[in-house]
Every structure is written in structure tokens, then in C-alpha cells.
């Protein structure tokens, strides 16, 4: 069902544009042109955050942190097997999806751990990545409480996710 939503929306949009007598081709081209300059200007920020994440993983710092934090996670009701996933999720989208794939393969797609991992990924976002990219084109240097608020909310979300997986 959901695969039809986007194509139907697109057709409706073009028909609407046609109905409003705008030149859809020229308008589309004008908009698409902005893509290259946008990507060029956010590339350095994406590269920097991805290098940092790669170094964290290769050096074993995340694995070490995950080991230290195991009792904390157990206390919060999050399966300790998901420590690394929860730690990396705020930084990298592709990295956490790769980890999810590992979890699914190791514990089986329908196990409690895998379901927790799926729900945690589904209800959270790459906080640091989003913040870096969104603020990359502004002069803002002081973010105040933005990141802590998002992080704390996500951790509580992860705890709720694991609770829900137990009953649902």
C-alpha cells in the first residue's frame, strides 16, 4: 500500500502545477540546480563526523565504552547487547543500520533483542549528524541546551522502546 503513496503524490503534484499554469519543467530544473551547491557546502561537515565515528570504532573506544556501560544499560532495561548500537546511533545513520543488520543476523529477526534494536532505531535519529548539517550553513556556534535535550529524550525513548517490546 505504502509504495503507491509517493508516485501518486508526484502525479498529483505535476497535475496541480499544470492546472496552476506553471512551467513544471523549468521549475523542477531550477530547484534541482541547488542540490550540487548544497551538497558541496555540507560535504566537509559530513566527512568530519564520519571520520570521527570511524576512528572511534576502529580504535575500539566504543566497544570499551559499551563494556563499561553494560551495568548501566542492564539497570535501565536495555539489553546490554545493544550498547554499541545505542552509543553510535546519534552519530551515524548508515553505521547504525549496519549494526542493526549484525544484530538481526546474530540473534534472529524475531528475537526480543532484535525487536528492541528495530524499535530503538525507528524512534531515534542521528542527533549529532542532524545538528552538524542543519547548523552548517549558519553562523551559530552556541547551541545551548539543544543536544542534551535531544539526547536525554532519545535515551528515555530507548528505555520506553524496550519496555514496549516486552509487552507487545
Amino acid at each position, binding site marked *: 500500500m505504502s509504495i503507491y503513496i509517493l508516485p501518486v503524490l508526484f502525479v498529483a503534484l505535476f497535475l496541480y502545477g499544470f492546472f496552476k499554469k506553471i512551467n513544471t519543467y523549468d521549475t523542477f530544473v531550477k530547484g534541482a540546480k541547488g542540490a550540487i551547491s548544497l551538497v558541496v557546502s555540507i560535504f566537509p561537515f559530513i*566527512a568530519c563526523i564520519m571520520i570521527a565515528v570511524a576512528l572511534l570504532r576502529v580504535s*575500539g573506544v566504543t566497544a570499551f565504552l559499551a563494556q563499561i556501560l553494560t551495568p548501566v544499560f542492564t539497570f535501565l532495561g536495555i539489553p546490554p547487547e545493544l550498547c554499541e548500537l545505542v552509543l553510535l546511533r546519534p552519530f551515524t545513520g548508515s553505521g547504525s543500520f549496519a549494526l542493526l543488520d549484525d544484530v538481526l543476523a546474530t540473534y534472529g529477526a524475531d528475537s526480543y533483542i*532484535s525487536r528492541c534494536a528495530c524499535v530503538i532505531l525507528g524512534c531515534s535519529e542521528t542527533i549529532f549528524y542532524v545538528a552538524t548539517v*542543519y547548523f552548517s550553513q*549558519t553562523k551559530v556556534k552556541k547551541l545551548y541546551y539543544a543536544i542534551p535535550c*535531544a539526547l536525554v529524550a532519545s535515551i528515555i525513548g530507548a528505555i520506553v522502546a524496550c519496555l514496549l517490546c516486552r509487552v507487545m
Partner: protein
Amino acid sequence: MMLISIGVLIFVDPGATLDAMIGASTSALELCIELCAVYAVWLGLLEIVDVSGLGQKLARLLRPLIKKLFRVDNEEIQKMIALNMSANMLGLGNAATPMGIKAMQALDDGSGKANFSMIMLIVVNATSIQLLPSTVISLRSNAGSADAADIILPTLLSTIVTTGLGIVFVLICYMIHKKLKARRRRP
């Protein structure tokens, strides 16, 4: 953070440092090329949404919510936030990003400090208000799940918790911040 990791690597595996950095940079470039293609499609479509006046209509629909939540009065910015939120809810994070960046640019007052609207926008975006976790579901069904979609309900509920809490936290922090500032100003 980078410093700690490199410091650790010097002791563990010095040869891997540069490899890891260049590997990551390469994947960043690959990601950017992919993003460029994705953004071209979305920015093209969004331009049509904008020029045809559909954006204004959507913004008008969401205006009460946006005005209350983000405290933005400028119609142009309201429109961008409306598009950003709609794309997010459809699970189109990549379509939401260009609009979010534009909204941020328009909200920037050049003071170097994030204002309330910017912080609210970033927290709402960073706590994800996805209605359909399509990537997760497809990964799960690939892994041989019997009912890959049974995570939709718990995901939806925890997403509501996360985003709701994010908004509440921002409001609380904003009030505390304002009070502290007022106290500091007094001699």
C-alpha cells in the same frame, strides 16, 4: 573525541589510523554523491510545490501549530518548517534536510547564538517524528522475520514519547535559561 581515538590507536594499531580516516572520508564522499542525486529530485519537486502555491497552503494548514511550537511569525520560514515537518513524518529524512537547512539559514540572526526557534527545530528533527520506519522494516524482513511490520506500533508509541519529551525539555530549558539570564543582568 578524535584526539582520544587517535591516541588510543597509536598504542593499539598505528597503521590503521590513516586507513580508517581515508576510508571514512571516501564513504562520506560516496554518501554526498548519493545525497546530491536525492536532493536534486527533492529540491526539484519542492520548487514545484513552492511555485505552485501548495507550500503556502500547507503552511497555512500547519500555521497554528508552527506558530505555537516554534514561535515563528515569518510566513516564508513557516512554509519551510511546514515542508520539513511533513517530509519527516512521511519518513523522508533526506527530503526534509534541504528544507531544514534553509529554515535554519533564514532563522539565523548572525549573533552566533542559537535562538529558541532554531533549538526547537533541531530537537524536533533530531528526535524523529517518523510515522513509518520503512528502512528498519525492510532490513528486518530481509533477515527472515515472520512479521516484519509488527514493530510499527511500538515504534510509533516510542517516537511520540521521544519527540514529546524533547519538546518538553526544550521548553523547560528555555525557561531556566531565561531566568538565569535575567538574574545575571541584575547587579
